[in-house]
C-alpha cells in the first residue's frame, strides 16, 4: 500500500469532516477546483460541490465570514495560503473570534489552518511560525501537530471543538513525514506526548522541531545520554503537568522552538517550569530558538537561522555540563 503523508492526512481529515458533518465548509484562496497552493484540498471541491469555496485575497474578510457563519451554526475551515498572511486576518481572529464567546455567550467554532514554518528558500514571508502570537490571546486553541497521526486526528478534533482553533500545520513536514495508515484513535486533547523517554534532560518542543530534537537525542544516545523529548501537540492549552512530570524525572530542561525567542512558546515553558517546578531543576532551564532576524531566504542562511539537530545536540551537551 502507498503511505500517507502529513499533507495527505490533512486533506483526508477535511474530507472526513465534510463527509460526516453538513455544517462543515472550506474557504480559502485557490482551494476549489485548483485544490489549494499545497493541494491540501485536492479534489474536495468536486467531491463536495458548493462546500469548498474559493475566496478573494481578503484574509480579514475570510475570517470575518467564517465567524459570521459559525455564529449561525456552521463549522467553517479557513485555509490561509501561508501562515504569514494570517497577519492580514489578525484583527478578526484575535478581536472577534477570540472574544465572541466571552462577550456574548455565543460560541465561535471556526478552524483557521496555517501552513506554518520554514522550508528551504521560502524566505521572510512564507516561513513564519505564528503560534505564540495566537496563543497569547485567551479564547483561542492553538494546535501544532508534529506527526501524521496528529495532523489527521487533531484537525478532526479542531472541527468538533466549539472554540476557535488556530491549526498550525508545518510545511516542512508536509511531504517528509509519512505513515502507513491513518490512526483509528486520537491521543487525548490538550495533552503533550512523550515522544522519546529518557532520564537525563527533558526537551520540550513542537512542530518540525520535534524531529530535529529526536535526531539530536539519538545523537546523544551514542554518548550514553538518555534524552527525553516532549511533543507539546497543542501550545494552548499548554500541558504543564506533563512537562513538570518530565522535568521531575530528568532535573534538566531545554525548550526548543523554531520561532523567535521573545515572548514565545519556549519562554512560556521556561517560565512555567521556573515558577512551578523550580525545586525540580538541577540546572538553569535553557532554551534554543531561531536567530533574531527575519527568516532568511538562502538555504545556507536558513539552515543556520533555525535550530537543527546539530545545534540542539550542542545545547544539550552544554546543559548536561551545567
Amino acid at each position, binding site marked *: 500500500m502507498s503511505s500517507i503523508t502529513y499533507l495527505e492526512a490533512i486533506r483526508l481529515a477535511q474530507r472526513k469532516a465534510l463527509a460526516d458533518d453538513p455544517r462543515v465548509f472550506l474557504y480559502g484562496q485557490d482551494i476549489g477546483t485548483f485544490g489549494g497552493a499545497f493541494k491540501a484540498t485536492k479534489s474536495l471541491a468536486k467531491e463536495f460541490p458548493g462546500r469548498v469555496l474559493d475566496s478573494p485575497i481578503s484574509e480579514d474578510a475570510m475570517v*470575518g465570514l467564517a465567524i459570521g457563519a*459559525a455564529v449561525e451554526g456552521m463549522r467553517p475551515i479557513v485555509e490561509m495560503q501561508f501562515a504569514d498572511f494570517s497577519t492580514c486576518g489578525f484583527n478578526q481572529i484575535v478581536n472577534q473570534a477570540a472574544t465572541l464567546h466571552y*462577550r456574548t455567550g455565543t460560541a465561535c467554532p471556526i478552524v483557521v489552518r496555517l501552513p506554518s514554518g520554514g522550508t528551504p528558500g521560502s524566505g521572510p514571508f512564507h516561513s513564519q511560525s505564528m503560534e505564540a502570537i495566537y496563543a497569547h490571546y485567551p479564547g483561542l486553541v492553538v494546535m501544532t501537530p508534529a506527526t501524521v497521526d496528529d495532523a489527521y486526528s487533531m484537525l478532526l478534533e479542531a472541527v468538533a471543538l466549539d*472554540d476557535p482553533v488556530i491549526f498550525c500545520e508545518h510545511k516542512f513536514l508536509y511531504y517528509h513525514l509519512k505513515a502507513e495508515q491513518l490512526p483509528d484513535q486520537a491521543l487525548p486533547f490538550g495533552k503533550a506526548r512523550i515522544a522519546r523517554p529518557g532520564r537525563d534532560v527533558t526537551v520540550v518542543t513542537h512542530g518540525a522541531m520535534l524531529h530535529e530534537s529526536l535526531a539530536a537525542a539519538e545523537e546523544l544516545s551514542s554518548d550514553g545520554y538518555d534524552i527525553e523529548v516532549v511533543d507539546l501537540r497543542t501550545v494552548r492549552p499548554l500541558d504543564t503537568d506533563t512537562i513538570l512530570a518530565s522535568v521531575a524525572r530528568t532535573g534538566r530542561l531545554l525548550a526548543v522552538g523554531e520561532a523567535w525567542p521573545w515572548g514565545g512558546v519556549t519562554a512560556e515553558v521556561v517560565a512555567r517550569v521556573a515558577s512551578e517546578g523550580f525545586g525540580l531543576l538541577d540546572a538553569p532551564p535553557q532554551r534554543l530558538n531561531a536567530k533574531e532576524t527575519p527568516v532568511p531566504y538562502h538555504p545556507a542562511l536558513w539552515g543556520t537561522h533555525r535550530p537543527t539537530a546539530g545545534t540542539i545536540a550542542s545545547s544539550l551537551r552544554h546543559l548536561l555540563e551545567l
Partner: protein
Amino acid sequence: MSKGSVTSPRKAKESPKTGISPASKTPGKSSSKSTGDTGTGAGVTRELARKGYRTMLEARLLEEKLAALYRSGKIVGGVFLGRGQEALSVALGLHLRRGDIYAPLIRDQAGRLAFGDTILDTLRTYLGSILGSMRGRDGNIHRGRPSEGYHAMISHLGAMVSTVCGGLVARRFRGESGVVGATCIGEGGTSTGSFHEGLNMAAVEKLPLVVVVANNQFSYSTPNDRQFACPDLTARAAGYGIVGRRAVGNDLIDCLRVIGEAVAAARSGEGPQLVVADLLRLVGHGEHDDASYIPESLKKSELGRDCLLLARESLIEKGWMTEEEAVAWRDAVALEVEETASKVLREPAPDPVDEDWNAFASLGREGEQ
C-alpha cells in the same frame, strides 16, 4: 471643508422599482433641496412612518438619559450617541425582519430598538448590570445577541461587514432565501481595508447584504477632505459591481423609502446594496467631546437640521400624527426611560468572585477539556 464633503442629495442611481409615481408631498425641507425626485416617500406607509417616529423618540430620550447618567458618573467608559442620525438608523432597523441579520454600529440606538433591542437591555449594558446581555463583560454600544441575528459589534471599524456576509453564507447553505443581512458604518469607516474586503466579498458571493453609510462629514474630528478624495461615496458601489443608492439622511420618509427599496432589492436576490446618506451628528463624537471642530455654518445648513423635528413636522403635515399624539408619546417614552433607569440602577453589578474568568466556550480556563 472640502468641496466634496457636503454633497447635495442626489437621485439614487436606481430609479424606484415600485413604479409608484411620486404623489405625496415632499416631506422635509432638506429633501426639497434635492434634484426633485427623491424624498417623495413613495411606498412609505403611515404605519411605518409612525413607528419610525416613535422609535426615534425612544432613541433620542434614551440617549439623553444615557448622557445624563454619564455626566453624573453613573456610566463609566464611553458614551457615543446617534443624535441627528436617528432617521437613517431607524429606517434600516424597521425594514429588517425577525430572522434577518443586523450588525449595528455606534450611532444606531434607533435602529437597534427598531430591530428588537430594548430600552431595558440598553440601560443594563451601559450601567453594567449583571442582568444585561453582556453581563458587564462588554459595555455600551458593544452589545448584541449574535445567536438571534443581532451581532455585537467589535470596535474595529469595518469588521462587521464580512461577519454579516458569513451569516448570510450560512443561511444560503441552509437553503434559506429571502433573508437580508445589514450593517451600518460611518463615512470614516469606509476607509478601512475591512470595509473594502467585506463589500468586495459580498459582491463576489452576490449576498443579500445592505450596507448603510452615515456620512456625517466627520470621523471623530477628521473632516471628509482628509478621509477620502472621491466626491460621492455612492460612486464606490460601481467599483464593487453593486447597487449604490442615496438617501436624505435627516429625512425619515426618504430614509424609509430608499432603505426600503435597498432591503427589498437585496431580499429579492439583486445582490449587495450600498446606501449613502449625508447628515450631521448633533453631538460630539462621544459625550467627552464638544465637537468644536464642526463649523457653525455647517450646523446651520440643511444637514444640521434635526431629523426628529423634521419627522414630527412632516408626519403632522401629512396628517399621519397629531400634535397631541406627539406630546403623549414623548411623555410615555420619557416615563418608561426614567422608570427603567431607576430600576436598572438598583440591579446588581457583576461580582469578580462569581465571574468564571474563562474565555473558552467548551474548555476550562486553561483550555483543558
